[in-house]
């Protein structure tokens, strides 16, 4: 059928099928700014304006739009002239991956067209239909406030990230400075309603600013912001190639079953079907899917298609067909004969004698004890905990439970594969680890690495779900089977069932302490639930141990852990990587101890937390690389004391003792509380994570920066370009970043383990410094100087000490065309022996309804020491977004199953992630320190915001009600039962 519509002011006739939704039809017509987020409309990634109203095009039949007027973000800008809303989104740092930025821009337009002077509540309401997993909504709200003011012709509000000037390298204590002493707790204001205030500059300066920087440390607009705010085709699915087939998966309806037979004859007979692949026609090659360095940790417990399924959603077969509809029909026609087996879902049940054995295949390599579903046992110790317990005045033991959640990147996994003209396999894929994917997929496909090229375009979020070789092997097999280009995108439901998730764990702490609060022994015992396959099971649980036993000084520590198979969907990497689990248990446990000792909780923690110069004593035993010599890392920079002080100020800490505030007389069933958690993370995996960069000069003095690092929306490309620009003395716009492409860019392990700024950033800095030396040398030659010492690069010029200067363009033209011709270029790689910990303090304020158990989070405040923030806008954006994900983890997100292991809530809504119109107030402060090992003093920031919210909420609920809850998430019924059991509920 045909529909007649007006799109961005132009009359158009579009052809569509009656069942097709408007997203599909508009994308086919070239409007790429509408993106897939789900089939049920909740993400809003496909939002458009229909007759000026914001609606979700994926739940609107194209036919319904017949006769109506449609606006997409493509119609907002005229040539290079952006709409003021678009400019505001760029300027305020409201764009991370940009996947749903066009939808947010349209939401803003729908509001501002009607209401030029909206309240913050109205702004949050207009964004309520667009789920964002990245920004925490704060910067988009700020962007709309700015745009509204500009459109009204007013001076726009300025939003400054709250950044404290870098602290110098510390002496004896951790850069204490004038504020932050032990006794001196500052006066603070009271917390208000959820309002987005204009950030003010810090009230004090800890130390004089260090050397003048021009690009680093500045809130530069992201280098990819323009294409993202315009909705340009930049993502995997925006790529078009002739003759492309559509793939679809058949996944298991059973949690545990043997496949006795597959009959694909009916599917193959369907016209338009080109291939059906499954265990009978795909070679059995063992692998582990976690995107990690060579050699991937064992066990290698997966094959592309097995004759056994181990969770609901496990792979059974895949189809490639001319259309998605034919592929879906073919899937229905595959006949699978299952022998259903008993299944086990709980990590504590799975290790019991007689539990169903999940990996009974004879060819599995490297599991610790497959007969008891144990993929790994991890043990590490320093000192002697038993001796420590004997010496202790008190010993405390508590058990905590953490659950399984999903990463929910709004862009699901998607890969398009095809043979290029040289008959090499090209995989354009939404991945955090293009180089690992190339190496890992090769043996599964029977192709040498040299015949595979992996391209990572823009990525719509990953959060660890894409630190995995998840679907690329299927696409590769189908390209090989058909000779045609093949596209496979997971649906939102598949993303929940068949992708990856965060490990559920049972965590037990036993801690010995002296009467004065000194820790003498800590033992942490963890049973981690890795689901059906191990992938990241070893390393995530190792990080749980490392993070659970590093924050506090203690001479005797022990970590004992089993990583356990169950018939649940697979756990893998998720931003934080074992640390959020550890922090929930550790920071709850420490508060319980302080409470029992009658000590002030912050005083107790401060007494024991690691300070500058302290050794991280268990770290050498919980690394990822066997090391011949044991080197105990030492903390070299920490702003933790200052972070705590800043956080206390931001949240209004003193109110937690005010009975009138805690139990407001006019609301008898409400109790209020404030809690905190200390956070400590790592920066990259020492001795293992390597990143590389290459850089070259162009005729006009601009530079191509080629990096293997994978910006998944975080701003990594921008931060790395800022580092290059700083070294080369040019503005950011002169650096053209390209990442990542295994044919063109140097190797990088990829975006994980909070490594990019630190590892890849140091590689960029080294490469840029090498190139700068080449430029200076040429400048000396051109200026007739004996040597290049004293020449500095600044403002796109090379300046001699005598005041003469040459433009970089003059130097480049000279080198490329005029004399002693050569291409100035440089490459460098970096691997760090160190993993300097960023520190943070997370605070939360809650209201607990003691009759219903409903917890309302009214405020989150976090102060983070990330070293020097290369870009304060992207850095604060990381914290705001990370805290918001962490809030979901602590409060409302959970993967829930029925007795057969079927996920009950594989849909957004039932799986609840926070919306713009229900967010608590967010406050972020960056407490900068100078990390001596980092580029320009930087440490990591990406993951630490995931660590503290759950324990801070637990502690706030305790402060409010006196009831300790040792299991997340804090959903109403769980809290109600705990309150009732404690006799608190009304």
């Amino acid at each position, binding site marked *: *059928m045909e529909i007649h519509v007006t799109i961005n002011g132009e009359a158009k006739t579009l052809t569509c099928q*009656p*069942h*097709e*939704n408007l997203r599909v039809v508009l994308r086919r017509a070239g409007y790429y700014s509408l993106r897939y987020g789900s*089939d*049920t*409309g*909740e993400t*809003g990634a496909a*939002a458009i304006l229909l007759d000026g*109203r*914001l*609606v*979700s095009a994926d*739940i*609107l*039949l194209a*036919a*319904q739009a*017949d006769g109506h007027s449609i606006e997409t973000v493509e119609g907002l800008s005229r040539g290079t002239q952006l709409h003021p809303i678009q400019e505001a989104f760029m300027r305020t740092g409201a764009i991370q991956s940009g996947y749903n930025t066009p939808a947010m821009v349209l*939401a803003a337009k729908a509001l501002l067209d009607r209401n030029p002077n909206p309240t913050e509540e109205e702004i949050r*309401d*207009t*964004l*309520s*239909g*667009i789920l964002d997993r990245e920004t925490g909504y704060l910067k988009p709200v700020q962007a709309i406030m700015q745009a509204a003011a500009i459109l009204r012709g007013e001076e726009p509000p300025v939003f400054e990230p709250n950044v404290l000037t870098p602290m110098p390298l510390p002496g004896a204590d951790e850069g204490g400075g004038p504020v932050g002493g032990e006794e001196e707790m500052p006066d603070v204001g009271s917390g208000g309603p959820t309002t987005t205030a204009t950030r003010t500059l810090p009230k004090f300066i800890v130390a004089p600013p260090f050397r003048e920087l021009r690009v680093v440390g500045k809130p530069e607009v992201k280098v990819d912001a323009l294409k993202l705010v315009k909705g340009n085709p930049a993502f995997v699915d925006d790529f078009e190639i002739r003759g492309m087939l559509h793939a679809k998966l058949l996944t298991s309806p059973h949690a545990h079953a043997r496949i006795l037979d597959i009959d694909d004859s009916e599917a193959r007979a369907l016209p338009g079907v080109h291939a059906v692949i499954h265990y009978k026609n795909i070679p059995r090659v063992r692998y582990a899917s976690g995107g990690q360095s060579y050699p991937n940790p064992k066990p290698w417990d997966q094959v592309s298609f097995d004759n056994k399924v181990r969770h609901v959603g496990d792979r059974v077969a895949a189809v490639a067909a001319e259309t998605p*509809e034919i592929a*879906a029909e073919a899937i229905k026609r595959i006949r699978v004969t299952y022998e259903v087996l008993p299944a086990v879902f709980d990590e504590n049940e799975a290790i019991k004698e007689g539990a169903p054995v999940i990996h009974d295949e004879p060819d599995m390599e490297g599991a610790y004890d497959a007969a008891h579903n144990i993929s790994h046992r991890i043990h590490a110790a320093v000192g002697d905990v038993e001796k420590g317990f004997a010496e202790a005045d008190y010993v405390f033991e508590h058990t905590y439970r953490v659950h399984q959640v999903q990463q929910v990147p709004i862009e699901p996994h998607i890969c398009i594969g095809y043979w290029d003209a040289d008959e090499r396999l090209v995989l354009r894929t939404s991945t955090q680890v293009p180089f690992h994917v190339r190496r890992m997929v090769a043996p599964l496909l029977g192709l040498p690495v040299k015949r595979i090229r992996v391209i990572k375009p823009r990525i719509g979020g990953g959060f660890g779900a894409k630190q995995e070789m998840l679907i690329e092997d299927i696409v590769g097999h189908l390209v090989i089977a058909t000779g045609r280009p093949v596209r496979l995108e997971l649906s939102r439901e598949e993303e929940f069932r068949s992708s990856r998730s965060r490990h559920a764990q049972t965590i037990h702490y036993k801690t010995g302490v002296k009467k004065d609060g000194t820790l003498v022994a800590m033992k942490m015992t963890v049973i981690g639930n890795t689901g059906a396959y191990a992938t990241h099971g070893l390393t995530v649980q190792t990080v749980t141990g490392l993070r659970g036993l590093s924050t506090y000084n203690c001479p005797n520590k022990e970590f004992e852990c089993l990583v356990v198979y169950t018939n649940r969907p697979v756990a893998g990497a998720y931003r934080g990587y074992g640390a959020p689990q550890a922090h929930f248990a550790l920071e709850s446990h420490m508060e319980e101890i302080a409470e029992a000792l009658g000590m002030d909780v912050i005083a107790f923690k401060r007494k024991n937390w690691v300070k500058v110069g302290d050794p991280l004593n268990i770290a050498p035993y919980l690394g990822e690389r066997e090391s011949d010599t044991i080197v105990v890392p030492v903390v070299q920079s920490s702003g933790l004391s200052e972070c705590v002080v800043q956080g206390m100020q931001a949240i209004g800490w003193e109110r937690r003792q005010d009975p009138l505030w805690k139990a407001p007389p006019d609301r008898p069933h409400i109790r209020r509380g404030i809690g905190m958690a200390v956070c400590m993370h790592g920066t990259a995996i020492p001795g293992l994570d390597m990143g590389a960069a290459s850089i070259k000069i162009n005729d006009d003095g601009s530079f191509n920066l080629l990096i293997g690092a994978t910006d998944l929306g975080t701003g990594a490309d921008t931060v790395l370009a800022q580092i290059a620009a700083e070294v080369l003395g040019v503005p950011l716009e002169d650096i053209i970043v390209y990442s990542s492409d295994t044919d063109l860019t140097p190797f990088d392990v990829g975006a994980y383990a909070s490594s990019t700024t630190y590892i890849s950033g140091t590689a960029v800095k080294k490469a840029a410094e090498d190139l700068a030396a080449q430029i200076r040398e040429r400048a000396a030659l051109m200026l007739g100087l004996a040597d290049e010492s004293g020449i500095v690069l600044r403002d796109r010029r090379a300046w001699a000490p005598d005041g003469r200067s040459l433009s970089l363009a003059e130097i480049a033209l000279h080198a490329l065309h005029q004399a002693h011709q050569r291409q100035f270029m440089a490459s460098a790689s970096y691997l760090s022996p160190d993993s300097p910990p960023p520190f943070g303090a997370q605070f939360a304020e809650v209201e607990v*309804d003691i*009759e*219903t*158990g*409903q917890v*309302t989070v009214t405020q989150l405040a976090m102060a983070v020491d990330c070293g020097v923030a290369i870009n304060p806008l992207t850095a604060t954006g990381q914290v705001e977004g990370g805290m918001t994900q962490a809030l979901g983890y602590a*409060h*409302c997100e*959970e993967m*829930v199953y029925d007795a057969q292991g079927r996920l*009950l*809530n594989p849909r957004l*809504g039932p799986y*609840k992630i*926070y*919306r713009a*119109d*229900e967010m608590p107030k967010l406050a972020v402060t960056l407490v900068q320190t100078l990390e001596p090992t980092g580029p320009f003093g930087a440490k990591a920031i990406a993951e630490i915001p995931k660590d503290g919210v759950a324990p801070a909420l637990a502690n706030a609920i305790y402060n409010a009600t006196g009831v300790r809850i040792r299991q997340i998430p804090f*959903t*109403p*019924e769980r809290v*109600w039962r705990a309150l009732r059991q404690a006799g608190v509920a009304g």
Partner: protein
Amino acid sequence: MGVIRAYYRPTSLSEALQLLARPGVTTAVLAGGTYLNAHAEGVDEVVDLQALGLDNVLLADGYLHIGAMTRVQTLVELDAAPPVLRQAAHREGPNTFRHQGTVGGAIVCADPESELLAALLVFDTEVTVQTSAGSRTLTLAAFLADGPTALSSGILTAVKVATTGLAAAERVARTPADTPIVAAVARKTPEGDIRLALCGVAKTPILVAPEQVATLEPPGDFRGSREYRREMAVVLTRRVLARLS
């Protein structure tokens, strides 16, 4: 989706009813589409009501007369509607859903957690169903109790809602904007009668006598067990009633 083979946009009610009455074709009425386009399986053909002019809103004799195709957002912004009703409409979904979804669609979907339906129930809402045999008017409570048979091959065309009296709402949910686990809406009519509606305790939102609340047997799910939902029904009922006194 993927199964709809034909789309119709009739311009008269009789044409629409004829399309729905055809034997052998599974034909669904398409209102806004927020539910049907996301979840419907097994629908062969759809009849879109957008060209029937069913989106008028009129206040007469203290009653709102709302066309079934009126968008939920229109109700949110309707000054003549009681604040509790507007607030409940606002909670029917996020911005995008409210701008696409319709009042009639919300009623026919009969989501057990719809606070809008609970609010409509306490405001003595009546619905008009048009069939080829003529039109009939019944209470919303009766319509919901009848389930899918209430419509048969008819079309819900109009909704009549009282606007008088004093109303209040209470809810418990995982987060402030989440669908409620249990919600209670109550209204005291000008005559002093109490209407109480609950959602999250039965297959659809229901009107219930306050003294019956403690005897409810709600269906449990992962967000709230039977026991919890019944307990919350009691707590929230007590709270809404207290706010009316």
